[in-house]
């Protein structure tokens, strides 16, 4: 098993963990936590492919990951703001009870 494959498997496992949490846990914030984990897994994937890829000198992977991190941060901020707003409105952070769009 090449190091690349180990990295990739790690990132796959991390992604699966994050996904499991996102679709399994009841609390809204934990869904966001899971999403952060998934994003991190993707970043790891990118760095692995940059490192073990053909042309690491171009720094493409690094730049990609930097932008991804910036995005992730912005998304986490907005998402948490949403959770707070929902909490304020429905007095609960239980995702089972937030089903305004049902039907």
């Amino acid at each position, binding site marked *: 098993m090449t190091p*690349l*494959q*180990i*990295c*990739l*498997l*790690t990132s*796959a496992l*991390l*992604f*699966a*963990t*994050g*996904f*499991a*949490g996102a*679709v*399994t*846990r*009841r609390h809204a*914030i*934990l869904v966001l*936590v899971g999403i*952060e*984990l998934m994003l*991190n897994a993707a*970043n*790891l994937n990118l*760095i692995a492919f*940059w*490192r*073990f*890829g*053909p*042309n*690491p*000198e171009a*720094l493409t992977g*690094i*730049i990609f*990951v*930097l*932008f991804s*991190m*910036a995005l*992730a*941060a*912005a998304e*986490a*901020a*907005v998402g*948490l*703001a949403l*959770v*707070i*707003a929902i*909490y*304020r409105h429905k007095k609960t*952070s239980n995702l*089972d009870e937030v089903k305004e769009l049902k039907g």
Partner: protein
Amino acid sequence: MPIAFILTAVVTLLAAAAAMSLRNLVHCALMLAVSFSGIAAIYLQLNAEFVGFTEILVYVGAIAILIVMAILLTRSGETPDKSVLTSGWMAGIVVTVFVFVLLGWAVLNSSALPQTMAPAPHATVKNIGDVLMTKYVLPLEIIALMLTAAMIGAVVIAYREEAPKTKREEGIPIPPRDSLLPPPSPTGEKA
């Protein structure tokens, strides 16, 4: 190299699993921070030092804290006594298994993966800065714009609404603006 890498990976994965499965949300957040740190360590081992440090800065320093803030703001600090799992969680597990099986199978059976390892790159800050400012200056600007928008959006969404100007019933005081407590209901019931 592999031993350290595998160790780090195991720590990261365990922390991530813990982050997703603990009952107390604050513990989850802390485990999340550990997981982020583990990922940063992996980055460092992969010669992406700048990304690793950026990871610590952004994720552990900002996002994890942000998550803790949100937990506090949504009053989810106590350990819940009910189930923490959502309804239909088994379907989610099944889907997760599918996803992981797919990804793993793709990774293991792929013939497109590069076989040889390139020499360690020079991923210095200078190089990164050079590239950012020349080749990727447009995404940079766009990211800046996006961050601005996100910041403004987050503020707008989470902004506490003004108390209504109309007079309420006599004797009930209008709470101050920046209080963390929700305004008392007219009948005095707990929200």
